């Protein structure tokens, strides 16, 4: 008896929940309104079946519950009824499937006028490539991938020379133009998803997959990876900005081509030495750091990491949070480097400094720290802690542990890394939670101290 009432309540409750729910599809920002139509159609058909069958069941339970003296009716089967119900079901299924297949046919047929761009996935970053003026993407191969050529572009291919490379996880698209995204992975499966566009597709290493859409609404949208790709899966984020053609063109023209990057002159470390004089007052002549001034050791860091952090300081991506006391001191210092060239030079100088020792200041259980480190940190920073250009993870070995301690706490408290342009810092905000408490943090740092 109660079950009949509950079944009715559950049906009513589900319908109410559906209409009251604030959780529903994001506003559509592409041409795929037909997908939304198919979903709504399916919703109404299945919703009607859900309500009808369950209410009928509730009625049966109520009406035919056991009563003294009552006996069930003996009726082994009723072929007419069963065939009739199957036929009605088949009609309902066709009503949902047919429009679905039509929409799928448009999805698999890319319009002629769609322009191509390439999405490159790797653990746990997005990057993008646009064909240059020739409109053709150059050939690529995993064998060409190196620190100097992260996209793996074939240096011999003339089509690749003017390819525009976007190493940041932020890309632009012009509004109202159909685009075909070519999807490529350097390592494992990923999935290129922008909820507002409705379409998604896996990136599969060893092959190129695709999807197409026409962005219809100007704005900025999250790119998510939706195929499990290792422990950084949930921090593999990007942004796609849908812009007016003029804004798009302006943005695109600011991005370097393959030829420009390949032909860039080496940074001038000697010039960097001049600039470094200011830095040395806190960080020391050898970049050995000075705990008394809260200046961390710098020697031993990779130049690309120093470059990026300096730019973040300049752009207010880092060192702008009111609680980031020392970061706020650093920001104006970084701004003294007036050009990108100066930043590159000083970074190059620092990365060449002889590596000095950093005295250990924390103590903890290194064995416990090792298991936490290997499970969570090593994927980017390496088992040896030396970091990698491929994952944009800096060296950790031999650096100031008190500084790492502060930074990890800053990540956890979102004092650092919460800025939407701090792409890798954002990953650390999540990953730093692997050290659940003070004790585990010290354990990990003392393990890192034990690395050579």
């Amino acid at each position, binding site marked *: 008896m109660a079950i009949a009432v509950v079944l009715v309540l559950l049906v009513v409750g589900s319908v109410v929940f559906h209409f009251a729910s604030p959780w529903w599809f994001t506003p559509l920002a592409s041409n795929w309104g037909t997908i939304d139509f198919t979903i709504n159609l399916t919703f109404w058909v299945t919703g009607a079946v859900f309500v009808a069958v369950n209410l009928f069941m509730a009625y049966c339970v109520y009406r035919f519950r056991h009563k003294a003296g*009552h006996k069930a009716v003996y009726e*082994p089967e009723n072929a007419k009824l069963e065939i009739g119900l199957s036929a009605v079901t088949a009609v309902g299924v066709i009503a949902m499937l047919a429009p679905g297949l039509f929409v799928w046919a448009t999805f698999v047929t890319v319009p002629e006028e769609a322009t191509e761009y390439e999405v490159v996935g790797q653990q746990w970053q997005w990057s993008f490539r646009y064909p240059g003026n020739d409109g053709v993407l150059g050939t690529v191969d995993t064998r060409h991938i190196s620190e100097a050529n992260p996209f793996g572009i074939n240096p011999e291919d003339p089509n690749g020379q003017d390819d525009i490379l976007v190493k940041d996880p932020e890309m632009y698209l012009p509004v109202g133009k159909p685009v075909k995204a070519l999807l490529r992975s350097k390592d494992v499966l990923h999935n290129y998803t922008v909820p507002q566009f409705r379409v998604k597709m896996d990136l*599969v290493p060893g092959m190129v997959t695709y999807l197409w859409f026409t962005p219809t609404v100007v704005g900025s949208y999250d790119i998510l990876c939706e195929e*499990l790709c290792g422990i950084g*899966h949930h921090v593999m984020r990007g942004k796609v900005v849908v812009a007016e053609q003029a804004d798009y063109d302006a943005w695109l023209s600011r991005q370097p081509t393959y030829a420009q990057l390949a032909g860039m002159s080496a940074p001038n470390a000697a010039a960097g030495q001049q600039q470094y004089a200011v830095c040395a007052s806190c960080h020391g002549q050898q970049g050995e750091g000075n705990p008394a001034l809260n200046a961390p050791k710098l020697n031993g860091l990779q130049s690309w990491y120093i470059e990026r952090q300096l730019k973040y300081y300049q752009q207010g991506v880092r060192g702008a949070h009111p609680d980031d006391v020392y970061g706020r001191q650093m920001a104006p210092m970084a701004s003294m480097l007036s050009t990108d060239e100066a930043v590159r030079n000083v970074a190059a100088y620092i990365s060449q400094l002889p590596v000095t020792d950093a005295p250990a200041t924390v103590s903890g259980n290194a064995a416990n720290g090792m298991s936490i480190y290997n499970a969570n940190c090593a994927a980017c920073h390496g088992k040896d802690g030396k970091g990698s250009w491929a994952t944009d993870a800096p060296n950790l070995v031999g650096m100031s542990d008190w500084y790492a301690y502060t930074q990890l706490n800053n990540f956890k408290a979102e004092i650092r890394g919460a800025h939407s342009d701090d792409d890798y810092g954002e990953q650390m905000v999540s990953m730093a939670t692997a050290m659940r408490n003070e004790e585990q943090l010290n354990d990990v740092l003392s393990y890192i101290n034990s690395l050579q």
Partner: protein
Amino acid sequence: MAYVPLADQDHEHELHDPHTFITKYVWSQDHKVIAIQYGGTAILVGLVALGLSVMMRLQLGFPDTFSLIDPSSYYQAVTMHGMIMVVYLLTALFLGGFGNYLIPLMCGARDMVFPFLNMLSFWFYLLSVLILLSSFFVTGGPTGAGWTLYPPQTITPGTPGHETGILLMLISLGVFIVAFTMGGLNYVTTVLQARSRGLTMMRLPLSVWGILTATVLGLFAFPALLVSAIMMTFDLMLGTSFFMPAIMAAGEQLDYNGGSPILFQHLFWFFGHPEVYIVALPAFGLVSDVLSTHARKNIFGYRMMVWAIVAIGGLSFVVWAHHMYVSGMNPYFGFFFATTTLIIAVPTALKVYNWVLTLWEGDIRLNTPMLFAIGFIFTFIHGGLTGLFLGNVVIDLPLSDTYFVVAHFHMVMGVSPVLVVFAALYHWYPKMTGKMMNETLGKLHFWCTFLGTYAIYLPMHYLGFLGVPRRYYAMGSTDFIPESAQALNANITLAALFVATAQVLFFINVFWSLKNGKPSGGNPWGATTLEWQTPDTPPKHGNWGKDLPVVHRWAYDYSVPGYPQDFIPQNVAGDFGVSDDHDHDDAPAKHA
């Protein structure tokens, strides 16, 4: 001279009786003991998986409050929870547990036809479980690649347990498949060869049909998993490139070239989709018998129910790539697989209609097993209908890899089969133990489980509509997910904790009733099928005493007009209902 089967010859059924504790309960060849060994092990390992899901839910619901897991162990929990629940709990429990217990009894056989193989099957299963669990204690821990084990990430750095954990997983699956094959051959052979006299195929209870078809599916499907596990092991250990193209890892080029990650997915889902029905078909069968018995009415449309099981089983082999619509496979496959997938909806819907029509004009006893069975129909309708979203290829584009998928498959192959497991356990417990379970506790257990799971999974669909991706340790910051989604997640976690805790009621009931339950007698529900007609309860070794039962009618003669009681056991002769005494045709329709 009259034919007397070997097993019926007087001196014969004495010979294989076990005499020591070890042969009776440990190295037992009795299908009933093996069933309980299988079921007990499956439930224990299922509790591990339940614990893992609690850890995941705490992380998702209250990410800043609990310090239980880090990203690495979160993905390990996701993986192990899924694999354990699908393979080591549900497959083992339905086939190794219920299959073992019910097939010989429902078929009127003394045991499985290969009892020794049956015993080996259990011990190999136990070994596979131990290997699987041992991965929690090795360096790097268990694999965190997701239960789908998609390469390349399964065996590349960046995935937890990519060295030892994954190897143990693959070995464990291999051993499990050996165990399943030994059991499966037994189940099929027993059903086909050892049925009692008069028990034609079209008189078998639907439980047997469900288990038989599921076993046949398993025998065809598991080899695909086995070969993919072997090939992946080669990729891992020998450096072959079956599934591995040329890729990078941490800035280094790995020594692989030319393999296909999508090949693995095809093999995996060629196993993986039938696997859904390996779990679902036994549940369909068992719930049919529970519904019929407690509605005091024949299962409606028995023949259609049988053919629906067979049709679903057959179709389940041609729908696998609906798991791969966005995998990057040739998109033209979408047309074919969407069509086959939605065709499956027709026989499946027919089963639902026939369950509900079984209630129509019944005499419904709302006891605990029946409540679970009715709850199953509700959750299965829900889960089945959301399958029409995901199967329709374009709708899968926005919903794939979101919480909608998680909610869908938990409704359809998590909650629904588990409700059937409980319905079946409450239903057959009296036969297994000779004691009734406590009704009050049982009903309380039902309400907590049924309402609690719906409170978990109904809202979860809406996170999926919103676009919240699955398999995320933490959502981090996005523009499109409102704050309220986190509140919803917290509520889902509370419901999950409630449901997990409520399962204590079941275990209390099982152990309490073992000692204090009312004696059930041999046939407490007034059921028609053979297992309720054994001379002893619980049935002794050999099941039937001296003479095997002879079957005279189909399995569903409930409330036959003109018959004094509201059920006629299958082994009762007489000119009522669908018996052979006035008609040797098996078609029940003639009497409708």
